């Protein structure tokens, strides 16, 4: 277990470097000069050169990449082209709503998804199962930016239960602002997790040891909760990990729709302005979060399922 864990953790470093390199190169290859855009059409060449020097853009490519990597490792992405704050300040001030929405949506999606998926599997072929299948098809098919206006129309404009959009600085006032974004963000992962739980559970429930446990007199609920769920967990945990990526990119849409001052909304604004340092920083931060969550998923999986670490160890080492 330890050697598997160590190998898996070390693999994170080259992946992060690859992600940073690609992010750096993307901005390098981009057409148009952000400094020119910032200063406007009529800026003198001297002024452009001066500002480029201030941002360090006149140094050789490799030097700048080395600098970029070293900066990224310390969460230092220099100054925003259009904001008076440094990129690090922007990140620190805007990450919290994004993280909170992602965590809440993940919790809702996992708990509700596993619960509904289990019920569907136990009732396989009957109406709760049919309903669950229909719901998962719909949940995976309805885009979040389609769902958001519909929910706002019903629950915010007509019923006025929740706020249309916005955010509160005070944690205690956040409730009405949180409900709709969390629902919008969690529907797709919820559908995916429900679907995975269902198919995984159906496979496990048909196995011999389930029948044995029942024959020994374990109650049906006990069998499902203690025997089946544990054995059906692996694909579900992988599903939770890959859904997390969607929660990050989903924040671009949810935060824009609900006017939430998070990183997703800030990044979209940066794209409109071509504020490369902010775009790069958000990309790397999101990718890093995704990589770390998947590292955690792999380790948890190896912990509960010895086949994973043994197989992978054999294959890679």
């Amino acid at each position: 277990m330890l050697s598997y864990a160590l190998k898996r953790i070390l693999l994170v470093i080259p992946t992060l470097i690859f992600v940073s390199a690609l992010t750096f190169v993307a901005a390098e290859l981009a057409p148009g000069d952000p400094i020119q855009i910032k200063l406007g059409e009529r800026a003198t060449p001297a002024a452009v050169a001066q500002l480029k020097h201030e941002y360090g853009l006149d140094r050789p490519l490799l030097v700048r990449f080395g600098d970029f990597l070293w900066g990224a490792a310390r969460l230092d992405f220099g100054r925003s082209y259009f904001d008076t704050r440094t990129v690090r300040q922007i990140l620190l001030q805007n990450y919290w709503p994004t993280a909170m929405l992602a965590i809440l949506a993940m919790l809702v999606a996992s708990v509700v998804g596993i619960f509904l998926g289990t019920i569907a599997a136990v009732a396989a072929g009957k109406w709760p199962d049919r309903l669950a299948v229909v719901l998962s098809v719909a949940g995976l098919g309805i885009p979040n930016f389609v769902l958001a206006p519909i929910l706002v129309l019903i629950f915010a404009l007509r019923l006025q239960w929740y706020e249309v959009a916005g955010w509160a600085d005070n944690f205690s006032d956040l409730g009405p602002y949180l409900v709709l974004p969390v629902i919008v963000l969690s529907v797709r992962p919820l559908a995916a997790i429900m679907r995975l739980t269902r198919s995984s559970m159906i496979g496990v429930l048909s196995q011999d040891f389930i029948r044995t446990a029942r024959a020994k007199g374990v109650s049906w609920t006990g069998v499902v909760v203690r025997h089946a769920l544990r054995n059906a967990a692996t694909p579900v945990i992988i599903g939770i990990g890959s859904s997390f990526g969607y929660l990050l990119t989903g924040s671009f849409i949810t935060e824009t729709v609900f006017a939430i001052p998070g990183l997703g909304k800030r990044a979209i604004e940066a794209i409109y302005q071509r504020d490369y340092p902010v775009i790069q920083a958000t990309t790397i931060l999101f990718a890093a979060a995704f990589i770390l969550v998947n590292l955690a998923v792999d380790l948890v999986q190896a912990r509960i399922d010895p086949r994973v670490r043994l197989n992978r160890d054999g294959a890679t080492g």
Partner: protein
Amino acid sequence: MKRTNVIAGLALCYLVVLVLVAVGAPLLTKYTYDQQDLSGRFLQSNKAHWLGTDNLGRDNASRLFFGARVSLVVGLTVVSATLIFGGIVGVIAAMRGGWVDTLLMRVTDGLFAFPDILLAILIVGVAGRSSLTVIAALTVVGWPSMARLVRGQTLSLREALFVRAAQATGASQPHIVFKHLVPHLAGICLAAAIVDMASVILAESALSFLGIGIPPPAPSWGSLVSTGREFMRTDWHLVLYPCLALALTIICLNLVGDALFERWDPRKSARA
């Protein structure tokens, strides 16, 4: 007939109608998608405008029909590029093995480190907004999973008896790839392509919704939702039509793709 097949059949019918609407869009309406009429804004459905008009007096039906073109053209282009590029990489990785395989698979690993469409957002973000950028960005995001799928399938096919037999009779590598592998890969690749097409159409409309996708005045369904949302309080039907069109299209593509997967995937399971 199985119930799932009936449902997939219905979904396929919707998709056929969608293609016909996209192709025949100019015949179906007498307006173009960008023809403005400021004296007839926010009209309800009537004889002249089946689905009413939008905030600039443009015909909603035309915009919806021409929007189908945008979705399908972007979807087909990206998926074709993904199939070709991912297919070539996958087959080369599996047939060559060794360091070529390792290198190609490490690259796909690296690209998988970017969640969902984050890489596409980065590319569009730095390269600026154009149809070509969107297509290129979504291809970059899409090819690694296709390459993985093709590689995996090729690896198991490579050991199949008929491939061994062909090798034993001295068939050349290209002959084996095109005469023996490609026909066996076609089914599952088609299934994957259709499911991919759903996510490409979804991604394109999401980018357009955010204002970083297909540039106006091209009527991407994503842009239509975005415009409709602004006038939701007074004219909710503006947002309703593109929402319905998008959701139906994506659901139907998923249903058809899943049915094909069940038919072609040896493990008989749809992808998660």
